[in-house]
């Protein structure tokens, strides 16, 4: 091996000068990580406001929301939203939350900030590509939001954009012309950003690890980001051509997803030959790995933080890594469970249900390992500890309702109801968001050099934890009573008695949403007024806690850290200290 190629690619770019290069077009992974984080924050606030509007409409359909008529005179004349405006908001809520929050914050946000430091690197492998990924993602967000302002409004076809509704153009309904094209363009752009980000993460994790940071010593967060990057690289590569074909159906007059002989508003459509199921297959081929792209970073963050909270090593590091890899692998074999009743071959339906059920085994093992790790712990339940424990609770709850939906026979009944909404909000929405809260409370001192307020943090946890159960648990009951999702109002006789439940959910959602203002206040107040943070306020073992808070622009100040042991060495029998940092040689700790 010649000497040059054996050295990790060192990035001795000099410290950036000037505001633009320092904060806007920065190559520094820490700045880019924060940029992603704040983009997600903007997105999650937008998405949450949309969900408030939807919830108010579902609880009190006739209620006028005064500001709404100003925001969208067409969509909500007099403040009462039209059915199509409800569907537009639903589409935007789903798309923003899934892509720009769940995919962006845990992976690109925290991953970008923390991964290079945790593996002892100065920066990502390709800093320029990293900057490009962020700006591509940013542009895609702008494209999506701009659909709010075109005359026809955003599309009404949901975040899954099932063809032919999404492919037929404005003949099918409002927002399906320009709005739908903007949606597809935005998601296609997002794919490019994610692909570039993913290959950067993989190369960084493999190539830039410090000396001694073997794969078996990577913090579980790094494993999770690495696995997620592999998933992103493979899954977004399928969604990208699907979006291209969808756009072609719109502007090229092709009919990839539109069959022959369709009649819309008494007009025979000129399309012929396509297949609506093709879109569903391509979409869910991406869509199911996407679910794990959203949650696996959460699994990593929780595992990482749980060890610090419990002050003991995790019950089994290797089993957790193995389970995450198994889950990632299986995620490519199960997409058909979204399509049990879609007209897909019933034999395929049965076949897809088997790996879907099998995926519960590694997921169950992960939960058991966490429980085993909490056993006999000396818990330090500060804000991030509470959120980490809360994550286990909501992840178990959401996972168990997946048991029902994995079985085609039961899916026959529950498929399109609120049971599904409750399920995926728990397991993918709430769990992933709890992962983000955990990450924020945990890494805030490192990212901003100040401490967050603990009292506000705990208050935020209690309101959120109880709130999400009040919002999403009743949705399971609604689903059992066959309440159909994606309805802007409930006019069917058997659904009328369920409206009080919707009112309860709406109140819970507004209250829980209001509780997030505490978090936002805490975040921004602490950023400027919080107590100054020490290098290692949580007495954690990973490399990021061995450098000052916030870290210098080149992370380790030109030094090359060396790693001596696995992470999470807390309260080891016979050890010289309560916790053993990964990069401290034994004799340093003893002295």
């Amino acid at each position, binding site marked *: 091996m010649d000497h040059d190629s054996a050295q990790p690619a060192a990035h001795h770019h000099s410290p950036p000068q000037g505001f633009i290069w320092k904060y806007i077009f920065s190559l520094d992974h820490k700045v880019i990580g924060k940029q992603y984080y704040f983009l997600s924050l903007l997105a999650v606030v937008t998405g949450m406001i949309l969900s408030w509007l939807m919830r108010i409409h579902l609880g009190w359909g006739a209620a006028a929301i005064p500001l709404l008529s100003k925001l969208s005179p067409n969509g909500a004349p007099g403040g009462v939203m*039209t*059915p199509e405006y409800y*569907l537009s908001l639903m589409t935007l809520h789903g798309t923003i939350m899934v892509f720009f929050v769940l995919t962006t914050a845990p992976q690109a946000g925290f991953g970008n900030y923390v991964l290079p430091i945790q593996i002892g690197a100065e920066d990502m492998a390709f800093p320029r590509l990293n900057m490009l990924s962020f700006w591509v993602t940013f542009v895609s967000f702008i494209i999506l939001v701009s659909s709010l302002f075109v005359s026809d409004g955003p599309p009404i076809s949901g975040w899954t954009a*099932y063809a*032919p*509704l999404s492919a037929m153009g404005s003949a*099918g309904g*409002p927002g399906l012309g320009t709005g739908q094209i903007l949606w597809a363009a935005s998601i296609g752009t997002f794919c490019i950003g994610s692909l570039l980000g993913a290959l950067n993460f993989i190369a960084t994790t493999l190539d830039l690890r410090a000396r001694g940071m073997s794969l078996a010593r990577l913090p579980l967060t790094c494993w999770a980001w690495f696995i997620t990057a592999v998933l992103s690289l493979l899954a977004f590569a399928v969604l990208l051509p699907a979006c291209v074909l969808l756009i072609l159906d719109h502007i090229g007059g092709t009919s990839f997803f539109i*069959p*022959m*002989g*369709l*009649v*819309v508003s*008494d007009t*025979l459509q000129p399309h012929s030959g396509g297949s*609506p199921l093709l879109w569903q297959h391509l979409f869910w081929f991406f869509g199911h790995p996407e679910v794990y792209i959203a949650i696996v970073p959460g699994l990593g963050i929780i595992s990482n933080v749980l060890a610090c909270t419990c*002050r*003991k090593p995790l019950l*089994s590091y290797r089993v957790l890594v193995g389970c995450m890899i198994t889950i990632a692998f299986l995620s490519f074999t199960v997409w058909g469970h979204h399509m049990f009743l*879609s*007209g897909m071959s*019933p034999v395929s339906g*049965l076949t897809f*249900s088997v790996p879907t*059920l099998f995926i519960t085994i590694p997921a169950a*093992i992960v939960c058991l390992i966490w429980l085993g790790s*909490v056993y*006999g*712990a*000396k*818990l330090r339940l500060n804000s991030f500890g509470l959120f980490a*424990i809360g994550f286990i*609770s909501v992840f*178990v*709850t959401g996972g168990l309702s997946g048991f*029902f939906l994995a*079985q*085609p*026979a*039961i899916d*026959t*009944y529950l*498929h*399109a*109801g609120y049971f599904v909404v409750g399920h995926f909000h728990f397991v993918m929405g709430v769990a992933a968001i709890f992962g983000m809260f955990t990450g924020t409370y945990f890494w805030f001192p490192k990212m901003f050099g100040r401490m967050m307020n603990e009292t506000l943090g*705990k208050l935020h946890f209690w309101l959120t934890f*109880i709130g999400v159960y009040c919002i999403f*648990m009743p949705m399971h*009951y*609604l689903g*059992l*009573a*066959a309440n*159909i999702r*994606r*309805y802007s109002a*409930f*006019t*069917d006789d058997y659904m009328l008695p369920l409206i009080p439940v919707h009112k309860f959910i709406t109140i819970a959602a507004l209250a829980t949403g209001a509780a997030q203002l505490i978090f936002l206040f805490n975040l921004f107040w602490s950023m400027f007024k919080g107590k100054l943070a020490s290098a290692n306020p949580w007495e954690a073992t990973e490399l990021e806690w061995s450098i000052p808070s916030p870290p210098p622009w080149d992370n380790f100040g030109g030094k090359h850290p060396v790693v001596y042991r696995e992470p999470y060495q807390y309260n080891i029998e016979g050890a010289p200290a309560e916790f053993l940092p990964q990069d401290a040689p034994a004799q340093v700790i003893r002295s």
Partner: protein
Amino acid sequence: MGKLFAVVMVIITVVSAYFVIAHTWWMPVDISVHGPGVDHQLEETMLGSGILFILAQFVLAAFVFFGDSKSPRKVKRFPGGPVPLVVSAIVLVGIEILGLSLVGSKVWAAIYFTPPAPDSLRVDLQAEQFAFYFRYPGPDGQFGTIHPDKISDGNGNYYGLDPANDVAARDDIVVGSLTIPVDKPILLTMHSKDMIHSFFVPELRIQQDIVPGLDIPIHFTATKTGKYEIVCTQLCGLGHYTMRAFLEVLPQDQFDQWLKSQSQ
């Protein structure tokens, strides 16, 4: 803080489980032949995952309750280490999965893999944006051909029939609600003229997407007379929430009478 968490966790678990056990909101009474299989499968799964839910949350609450940081004791390793946990998870969850798959596949097979009875009553379903139309073949027992270019809601030719040239189409009965005889197998062939819709009757325990470009057959037998709602469950446009029809299950003699009155 740990003790508070444990208490809250237990309350949440008990309240959540109560509404399920009390069946406060539950499936409507089943009216189909294959339905008891679906219900049984769902109840078994509810029992299994309900026990797991309560167990997991209680154990978590207990561990957090006793995991106080202020106690002077040392941390304890989980007895036996990870191996028994992993093995028992694989064995127990594995058995549960195999059991559910085996039983569940039979239920699924009863709906989708059995051929329709030869004496089934054949009914056609056509879905369009925000309405269902049903078609009975009439006395000749044959459906007329569908001509998409002739479909027109304006002149009431919902099916695009061509009675002038097509003999089979002349006696086709097209109605806006599904009327069927009780205890008789029904073969429903579904197609859509525009978007993907879905046919769902909660009481029938049947849900099937209606995909443009495909003629998807489904068969069932209703066992109780009465009037039920058919809802669309696949997002099909702005009026999706209003898209519904009624299913009326009649005794055979009343059904015959109804059919006769329609064909005149």
